[in-house]
């Protein structure tokens, strides 16, 4: 019994990490239909910048805020320098540009920071919390809390605010959005800044658990992308549910079946779900107008 609870707690911890990364994909996807494969690099930058500014003597909260601010600027720069000049290119080309950007950011991080792994202290210590014989570290609660808060924020943003609706409108039809007076260029800049900030926040929250190095972004982006696909790309609820489900699947497979197969089982389930529901669990089914 306590084993099951431990597997569940582990699954939720890992799942919340995936969910935070998956949530970062949502905004840019909603604004432009582009899956931003540099999202993992935003997570890495959030962690790395916090590590280095913290080591330089800044208090941890300030270092974290600084990391999130700098990463947002990187997101804006990515949009201005790499994606905006290619405006009008098909979505696939834009996605390939983000892959190139992710390689570039990784290389730059390797030079600017270093090739070592790093960590900074957990926010509330490392003393595990015992729940019916199972344990969870306080930092996991921060990650879970962070994922839920970002989810609520995004949900409110897209359903209750005019700006959020402007973002959705831009994705739906850029020309029509312009005609009704939406500044689509500004919407794109905003969506990159917000996505990068969410990614960096994820990096700040998960680093005490997962550690950070210049190359952790790829693995995180892959799992976050899988979670987002499972839940339905572009839907914050989908990102949260997809992330937690993926984490639980992995933990339960590792616990009851075999740890050798945990990634395989997770991906088989994702494939099965997408086979039945191509839009993911919460994705809107859309019809293409010809």
């Amino acid at each position, binding site marked *: 019994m306590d*084993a099951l609870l*431990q*597997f569940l*707690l*582990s*699954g939720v*911890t*890992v799942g919340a*990490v995936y969910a935070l990364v998956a949530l970062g994909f949502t905004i840019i996807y909603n604004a432009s239909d582009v899956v931003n494969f540099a999202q993992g690099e935003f997570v890495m930058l959030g962690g790395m910048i916090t590590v280095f500014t913290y080591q330089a003597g800044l208090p941890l909260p300030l270092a974290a805020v600084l990391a999130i601010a700098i990463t947002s600027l990187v997101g804006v720069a990515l949009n201005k320098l790499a994606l905006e000049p290619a405006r009008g290119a098909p979505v696939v080309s834009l996605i390939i540009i983000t892959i190139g950007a992710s390689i570039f950011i990784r290389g730059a991080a390797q030079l600017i920071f270093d*090739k*070592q*792994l*790093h*960590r900074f202290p957990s926010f509330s210590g*490392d003393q*595990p919390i015992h729940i019916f014989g199972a*344990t969870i*570290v306080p930092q996991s609660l921060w990650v879970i809390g962070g994922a839920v808060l970002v989810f609520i924020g995004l949900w409110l943003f897209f359903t209750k605010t005019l700006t959020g609706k402007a973002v959705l409108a831009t994705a739906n039809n850029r020309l029509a959005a312009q005609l009704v007076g939406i500044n689509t260029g500004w919407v794109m800049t905003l969506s990159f800044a917000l996505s990068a900030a969410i990614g960096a926040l994820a990096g700040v929250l*998960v680093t005490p*658990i*997962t*550690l950070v*190095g210049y190359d*952790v972004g790829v*693995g*995180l982006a892959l*799992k976050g992308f899988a979670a987002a696909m499972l839940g339905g790309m572009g839907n914050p609820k989908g990102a949260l549910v997809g992330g937690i489900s993926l984490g639980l699947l992995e*933990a*339960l497979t*590792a*616990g009851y079946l075999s*740890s*050798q197969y*945990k*990634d395989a089982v997770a991906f088989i389930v994702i494939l099965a779900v997408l086979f039945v529901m191509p839009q993911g669990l919460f994705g809107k089914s859309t019809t293409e107008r010809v």
Partner: protein
Amino acid sequence: MKLLMTTAVSALVVLGTTAAMADIKLGASLSASGPAAFLGDPEAKTIEMMVEQINEAGGINGEKIDLVLYDDGGDPNKARTFATRLVEDDEVVAIIGGSTTGTTMSILSVAEDAEVPFISLAGAIQIIDPVHKWVFKTPHTDRMACEKIFSDMQQKGITKIGMISGTDGFGASMQAQCKDVAPKYAIEILSDETYGPQDADMTPQLTKIRNTDGVQAILNPGFGQGPAIVTRNKAQLGIDLPLYESHGVASDGFIELAGAAAAEGVRLPGTALLVAAILPDSDPQKPVVTAYKTAYEAKYGETVSTFGGYAHDAVDLMTNAMKTGGSDPAAIRDALEATQGYVGTTGIYSFSPEDHLGLDLSAFKMLEIRDGGWTLID
């Protein structure tokens, strides 16, 4: 100003050696960039530093060494091209290199065909087993790390263990070697778990090991962040079993990442180089590791690594063989094979026609982490 002078002088020395068309040509192909750069970069720096030192001290029997160094980026195809270029165009008399097992295997066939002595810096046991006439290697094998750990377990009366291994190349290779050699030490592996190199939480695997009846210790072959997370998770779960890590994480960085409290009591096999400061003065390796560590850290301003140590030993072994064998490849090879009791940073080497690694288990020191620092066990 003084610094400027020294730089100018050393630049002149370097220029001077190349201009003089040095007499002994030593070839090297290393993975100084690319995915294996953490191996090749310190290796290349070490070789460059040592050749410079040797030439400043007058060379070998009065002849300077001309180093031809290529960066194969960890690509076996490039390594083969560079190895061919080394023997055909550059006409080197000996080769050091092959940071990874893949690149080593490429260079190996070229060196065998061209009959040029070759010292590899890669780990796999296949490089020297079966023995190739012209091929030697300096790093100890994964198998030896397993044996060192198992012999320590044996002394503590541990016979049943749980294993949790990374699925990356390092972890998978060591996992296989440990499973293979375990029966020799009467160790029974009751639970065999794995984790991905980027995984964030290993508590399910550790819970399974804890719930396996009879497990007396946990062994974690792995590299990178995995072992640090395993160590933290084990402390989180409050599992009261001895934890053994591999030589892959034997660095101060590991204690920092895992946290001193969680890492307390962790045991692992490491080389003398990593514990240079706490080696007893009676240890024969103390002067060698201290000299190399001091010189490397002064020159490059970064901490020495075990990998750089492999290159250090390879250069020393090769140049010692050149001192007796001169510049004839066959004579160098024979002198190399006759090496007895050379004290290097990795261990004490004694080659023979049947053994081209020349290290025994004493090359590893069993270390334990206490109060956030290293302690020698034996």
